[in-house]
């Protein structure tokens, strides 16, 4: 077993022993259970004594699915931020790192191991929870998500971006501050993305630019738009396009390759800076 895998396993074990994993699973089960109940009741909904049309039912399902996945990604973001934030800063602050870094291990191995441990936690959470949620929507309403694999993959990428940011912040700030700032930036990015969407719907380039800059600075909301696009059926979008302008849970355009490349470069850059900070940290 390499040193990297030792630290990756240690990170997963810590999340389990500190009950973060169980808290995330508990919250996810609660959200999935409640949303499945809602999805199952959706086909029976009547508006003015008239049952919902299939198109309207699908529209409501797509909107609800987007909202629930956002709630799940927010729970995941909170969990990942508060697991990632103390993983380096906390060990430096408490002194746990003193005896570990005195071993013949490279700091890059410690960092990469911890990062991989966090990534595996985030990906497992998103795949299980996102997959279950999409399955719940399909089972309850018959709505077919057009690109479920893309949706889950982009949701996982969003989680990885956020945990990498939290890891970087943990080398700059105290563990508590790093967690708070990471979640705060996640929320701010979502709001700024929303402002950009409103700018697009109003054809106001200066307001729309807020979203563009936001997506470049922190790709969480940009990737989230990709998730939305992967969840929405094209036929549904064209039928209701006039009613969906500026709606944050619908996205007409998918992510470009250039944006995916930028997101990957952003991720590599952040992990690189984290390594630089961690390798220079003195204890």
């Amino acid at each position, binding site marked *: 077993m390499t040193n990297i895998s030792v630290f990756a396993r240690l990170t997963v074990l810590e999340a389990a*022993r500190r009950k973060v994993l169980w808290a995330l699973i508990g919250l996810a089960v609660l959200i999935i259970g409640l949303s499945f109940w809602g999805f199952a009741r959706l086909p029976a909904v009547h508006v003015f004594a008239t049952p919902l049309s299939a198109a309207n039912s699908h529209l409501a399902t797509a909107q609800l699915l987007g909202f629930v996945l956002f709630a799940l990604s927010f729970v995941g973001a909170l969990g990942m931020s508060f697991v990632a934030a103390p993983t380096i800063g906390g060990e430096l602050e408490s*002194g*746990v790192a*003193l*005896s570990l870094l005195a071993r*013949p291990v490279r700091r890059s191995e410690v960092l990469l191991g911890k990062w991989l441990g966090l990534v595996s936690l985030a990906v497992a959470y998103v795949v299980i929870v996102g997959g279950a949620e999409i399955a719940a929507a399909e089972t309850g309403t018959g709505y077919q998500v057009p690109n479920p694999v893309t949706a889950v993959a982009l949701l996982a990428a969003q989680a990885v971006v956020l945990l990498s940011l939290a890891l970087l912040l943990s080398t700059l700030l105290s563990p508590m501050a790093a967690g708070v700032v990471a979640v705060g930036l996640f929320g701010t990015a979502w709001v700024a993305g929303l402002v950009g969407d409103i700018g697009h719907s109003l054809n106001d380039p200066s307001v729309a630019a807020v979203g563009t800059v936001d997506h470049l600075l922190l790709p969480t909301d940009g990737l989230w738009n990709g998730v939305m696009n992967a969840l929405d059926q094209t036929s549904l979008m064209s039928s209701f396009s006039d009613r969906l302008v500026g709606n944050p849970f619908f996205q007409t355009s998918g992510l470009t390759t250039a944006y995916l490349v930028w997101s990957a470069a952003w991720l590599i850059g952040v992990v690189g800076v984290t390594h630089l900070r961690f390798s220079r940290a*003195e204890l």
Partner: protein
Amino acid sequence: MGGRALAGAASVPSRGGPGTLSRDAVWCSRLSKSYGHRAALRLVSLRISPGEVVGLLGPNGAGKSTLVKILVGLVRPDSGEALVLGAPAGRPEARRDIGYLPELFRYQPWLSVAEVVGLHARLRPVPAADRHGEVSRVLAQARLADRSGERVSNLSKGLQQRLGLAVALLGKPRLLLLDEPTSALDPTGRADVRALIDECRAEGTTVLLNSHMLSEVERSCDRVVVLDRGAVLADGPLGAWLDHDMLRVRLEGEAAPFVSCLKRFGEVSAHARELTVPSLAMSLVPDVVAALVGAGARVLGVEPGQVSLEEKLLELLARNDGEHR
């Protein structure tokens, strides 16, 4: 700066040939480190031979822990060079055969005692086939065998320090760096640490003991290095500190007038009714008494003794304080 060398003390390290360097367990030359405007280390040079047990002494903030952290690679010096077991300090190769007990000993509270030791055994690295036996050995050595399943969070501070010792002793390191190893231990624990150091000495392990417990240093170390204000103040064999025979003479009246009659016996000091004659061979005691009586003093008592490490250290630090004022 090699510091004030005592009788028989190690000389200022010179670079010498590569063969000479690789033979030293620790070799540092002109190490300096500052935190902001405060100098933690100033041109510290030090050489520790394999198998030596060296005590690192000095007041709080003298730079002892910084020096140890530089050797382990946790802190980078601003200037100077350090080699540990022949490899540049900070490189993984230099940490391959080191056991380190930090002053601030903290271990993952969510792991059990055996899991912490097992983790360090992997990182040490102890070969997989020997790992279980090695973990059991060090846990027994640190008297933690019956606590191996307990979570670290449930251990007292003293037991956590024992855990730190177990971790440091893993894989029988060639160099053991102990930073205040008994700060949280009870008298039995302190005796255990002394016994462990004796065992290490017998096995040829080099030990650098950073401790404020001077009695421990007195009992365990071959050599003492004193740091003050970030610089080496003294460096020499423990014997050079402790083998100073001295004589205290109590007189009936003021002692100061009789200092001059004892000039030929060395630097005699007077305090109230007592004269102190340092570094005096016991065979000369009758001559001292005869000189005093000859000068008209009435001698009430003569007490031969030794300068303790504490007295010597305090004297040295006071003198250095005076020089810096």
